[in-house]
């Protein structure tokens, strides 16, 4: 590989290479910042990611393989890049005031966040199983550290170490799965695997399938599906809320990006073999997430189980993707739902952050009593988020569920769709309970007024309602974004 080719490939991956360099610059800047000025890194990190979004958008329409086919630039990767960078921006916005307030203002937060984003972006572009694994680690390790950011608080340290231990355990399965696939195909390149499978030169299809299953385990851990979900409530609760908000969106989106890359693109041949497994996982995830959420009194744990449940909904499309002609539509539905979920989730976390006090107070449902009287705007926004989670029109959550169920039913999995609908009904119970507390119980909740948090809540709430009008064009856009790659 000549130096010219190397430089050319770097420009193909410009948003990624640029952001990595920017993160390195931020590391150096951090060295020279006094301890009480670390907040300066927030605008710098935000600036970097905003520029990254611009660079990503400039790439629209490109379709290139870079570094000997290790990474890809295509509609899917550009779409995911924009989504990840957007998640990063909101992560910075929510953290800025929160970290100061909680006495956690450390430069590492922003730098680790940017590094994690680079991992996610690499995940979206990965075209080789080795790259998938690298990206997975690149995005995960900063998250482990971020979870323990609030040291020496015990909960935060515990969250960090639990997440790390479980993550390492899960990563092991991913590596083992990759190894098995490599052993059966002689390559780790995704196009190579595809051609090997289609040419019928697989050494042992059974072991190949086991390899795929093990990768499913590792990635399922990232997106928190049953039974690989158990870390989620503890980590979500223990980690600082800003980190949780970022992690619950970013890691989930990245995990699904990898699942889509690996299962839909690389391993379509084992779709029929894995479908019953994914079916059961999806059903279990929806049931368990939604049922256990009922028992939660802590809003962070509630949102953790909510996050598990929604992973189940998105996983449904991976059940349906194997049906003929549905792949693109399934992926588009998943991406659409991912966007709707991200908006809703960020909004909800913004409200949580607005109400949270030091030492983990202000996180119980009771603390939301009377919010409707004291802070009408925030309560209305929270109501919109809860309705969007539940899937009630006119919110984007409803539209997202509509497309999801549509794909699942078209794929012929009526019973799975039925479980999805019924568990959605169950979820109304605990989502609406938040609304009941806000509007029908008396209380004097104190709210931290921060412009970025309020802005996040307001914009996401307005977007969730307003975008329903443009739901169909948005879905078409998502479809077109991914079509190129499939």
């Amino acid at each position, binding site marked *: 590989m000549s130096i010219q080719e190397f430089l050319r490939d770097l420009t193909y991956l410009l948003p990624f290479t640029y952001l990595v360099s920017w993160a390195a610059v931020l590391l150096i800047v951090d060295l020279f910042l006094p301890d009480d000025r670390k907040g300066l890194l927030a605008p710098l990190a935000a600036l970097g990611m905003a520029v990254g979004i611009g660079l990503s958008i400039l790439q629209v329409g490109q379709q290139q393989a870079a570094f000997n086919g290790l990474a890809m630039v295509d509609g899917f990767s550009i779409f995911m890049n924009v989504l990840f960078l957007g998640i990063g921006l909101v992560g910075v916005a929510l953290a800025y005031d929160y970290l100061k307030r909680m006495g956690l203002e450390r430069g590492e937060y922003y730098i680790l966040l940017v590094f994690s984003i680079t991992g996610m972006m690499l995940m979206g572009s990965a075209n080789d199983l080795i790259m998938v694994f690298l990206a997975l680690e690149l995005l995960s390790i900063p998250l482990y550290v971020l979870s323990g950011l609030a040291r020496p608080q015990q909960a935060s340290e515990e969250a960090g*170490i*639990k997440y790390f*231990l*479980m993550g390492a*355990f*899960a990563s092991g*399965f991913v590596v083992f799965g990759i190894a098995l696939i490599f052993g059966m195909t002689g390559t780790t390149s995704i196009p190579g695997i595809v051609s090997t499978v289609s040419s019928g030169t697989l050494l042992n299809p*059974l072991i190949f*399938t*086991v390899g795929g*299953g*093990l990768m*499913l*385990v590792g990635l*399922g*851990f990232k997106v928190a599906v049953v*039974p*690989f979900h*158990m*870390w989620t*409530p*503890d980590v979500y609760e223990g980690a600082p809320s800003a980190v949780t908000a970022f992690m619950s969106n970013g890691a989930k989106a990245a995990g699904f990006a990898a699942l889509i890359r690996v299962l839909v693109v690389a391993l379509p041949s084992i779709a029929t*073999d*894995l479908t*019953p*497994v994914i079916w059961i996982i999806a059903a279990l995830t929806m049931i*368990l997430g939604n*049922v*256990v959420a*009922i*028992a939660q009194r802590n809003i962070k744990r509630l949102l953790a189980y909510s996050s598990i449940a929604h992973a189940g909904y998105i996983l449904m499309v991976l059940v349906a993707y194997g049906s003929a002609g549905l792949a693109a539509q399934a992926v588009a539905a998943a991406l659409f739902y991912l966007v709707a979920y991200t908006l809703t989730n960020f909004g909800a976390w913004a409200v949580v952050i607005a109400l949270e006090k030091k030492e983990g107070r202000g996180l119980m449902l009771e603390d939301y009593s009377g919010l409707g009287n004291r802070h009408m705007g925030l309560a209305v926004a929270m109501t919109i988020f809860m309705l969007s989670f539940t899937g009630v029109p006119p919110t984007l959550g409803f539209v997202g569920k509509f497309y999801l169920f549509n794909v699942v039913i078209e794929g012929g999995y009526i019973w799975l769709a039925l479980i999805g609908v019924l568990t959605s009904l169950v979820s109304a119970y605990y989502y609406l309970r938040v609304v009941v507390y806000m509007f029908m119980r008396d209380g004097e909740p104190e709210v931290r007024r921060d412009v970025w948090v309020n802005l996040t809540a307001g914009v996401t709430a307005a977007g969730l309602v307003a975008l329903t009008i443009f739901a169909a064009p948005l879905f078409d856009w998502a479809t077109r974004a991914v079509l190129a790659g499939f």
Partner: protein
Amino acid sequence: MLSETATVGGIFSLAPLVVFIPLAGMIFNMLFGGRLSQKLVGGIASAASGLTFVIAVLLGVALYNQHGEPVVVPFLEWIHIGAFQVDWAFRVDTLSVTMMLVVAGVGTLIHVYSVGYMHEDVIHQGDPSRFRRFFVFMNLFIAMMMILVIGDSYLMLFVGWEGVGLCSYLLIGFWYEKGENGIGNAIAGNKAFIVNRIGDVGMLLAMFTLFWVFGTLTFDEVFELAPEIAATTPAYIGLITLFMLVGVTGKSAQIPLYVWLPDAMAGPTPVSALIHAATMVTAGVYLIARSAPLYTLVPESQNVVALVGGLTAFFAATIAVGQNDIKKVLAYSTVSQLGFMVAAVGMGAFVAGMFHLVSHAFFKALLFLASGSVIQGMERGHHLEHHAHEHDLKPRKKKSKEPPFDPQDMRNMGGLAGRMRTTYWVYIVGALALAGIPPLSGFFSKDEILLEASHLNTTVYILLTIAAFFTAFYMGRQVWMVFLGQPRSAAAEKAEESPAVMTLPLIILAVLAFFGGLLNLPGPHTFGHWLEYTFEAFHLEMETLPFSLPVALISTLLAVVGILLAWMFYGRQPLEKGQEDPLRGILGWIFTGMQRKWWVDEIYHFLFVNPYIQLSHVFAEYVDWRFWHDWFHEVVLAGSFNQFARFLNFRIDAGIIDRIANGLGNGTQQIAGQMRQIQTGYVRNYALSLFLGVVLIVGYILLR
């Protein structure tokens, strides 16, 4: 026809202005009139009306220049539903221009007159702030009347039809807190409105049927299709024309719906002149003339219309003889004269009917306005009298016990000729014109109707001739009672002439009433040829009958005899104060009948109003309240519902559903709680669960 006349330009594009100028006047007075003086408010309203007249004249001239070829001026798209299409389009033809000229011309004179009249009226009634409101309503009326006559479809006509009805209602009840028991005027307004609603049902049914049969409401399209439909099912056209007649009897005060018009005299006198004599009430006549292509297809309907008109003319004329209120005499006279017109258009004598409409507008507006002058003269006299005796008046209580002074009662008048010379002379002109004395306008127009009737319908001819005789008699009676003899009250002694702003329009109207006959002299038939353009467009042949001396002689002779008889009873020996009407002695119960309006109101009350009220009482008290509310609602519905609800509540809900739901809820909570137990917090347990998942998946793949 429409296609030939579709090109519109020049003067005709001004047509929409006839609606918008008065509307602009109204809006201007509504918004700014409060800050302007009375003269300015009245002036603006009169100018709006006058300008409308100028536009109408321009339209007329332009129409004459193109030999009466009808023009349709499109203005706005209105209703487009499938093939059904009705637009706001203005139809300019000789018929509509004639109506416009009458409405705007007479309307302008009445506006000017009203400036003087209302100035005193609002002082007299004690609320000067209503001066502006009056002119707002008047301009609205002109606009609505214009929509009525210029509309190109039955639907647009109906908009105007309802609009003028609304104005009529508003102006009858203008002094809504006055009148008998403080609600007399309001009741009169309500009566007019409700009776007109009955007529409007007829109009609506006519339009529904039109739509059903023709699928269109536009004049051109309806008239073009009419012959075809008449050839196959003439019953449809008969039904439509008879439904329309119901509307006509309401709006144009014909038997059986005429009863509202005499009560409508509760409105200020200029209103009586403009709306309830000259223009609005002639809308029915206009409607029949406009629908001539329909009516001529069904002679049966024509006969019914003619008979209704003839009977009304005769019947109302007899009542007019027995009235003592100066305006009531004119009101019944109006009903009677409308009967003449309806009879004429009913017989197919559209030109004669329209001609009488025009001349009647002149002399009846004149008579009403002059009577308004008389009434205010009396009031001025009463006022002077009151002031003259003020110094020797005892406490007011004593005065209030006297019956209230009625300035409209002719028995209080007498000898006004000397005190109100102008009013007297114009009144003589109006009265002679109405009585049909040659060469005044009324003679020619009435004679033409009688001439046509003598050829077309003998029954109607006899009815109308007798009515003409009565007309001459009651007008003579009125003139002698009001203007001649000796004053029969102190107010009449001191009565004063009205100001020039009122007398000037009177003089102009008197000139018109005198010479109006020139419009359509028996030889040239100018007016007839003018209108023929409109009717010829629909292939209707208008034959003009030659002047008939016997008919003219008979009617003139009868008129003279009527006046002579009036002189015998009221002129030779003028009424004294408090004297019984001499006719009572001669006619006995017949005169009482005339005076009591043949008890029609009482009969209507007996037949319709009281049974209706009793029926509503029964419905309200027994059906609605006792049966529906007390029994059905309370006992059957609410009672059984409560029983059922109690059953559901205690047996089903609490007994079964709650137990299940509680069980489910408790179960779910327990399961959730137990599931939570799995969440031990120990990483080893978490790892174990992960590993179990791996084992299950791999096991499934391998053992499948």
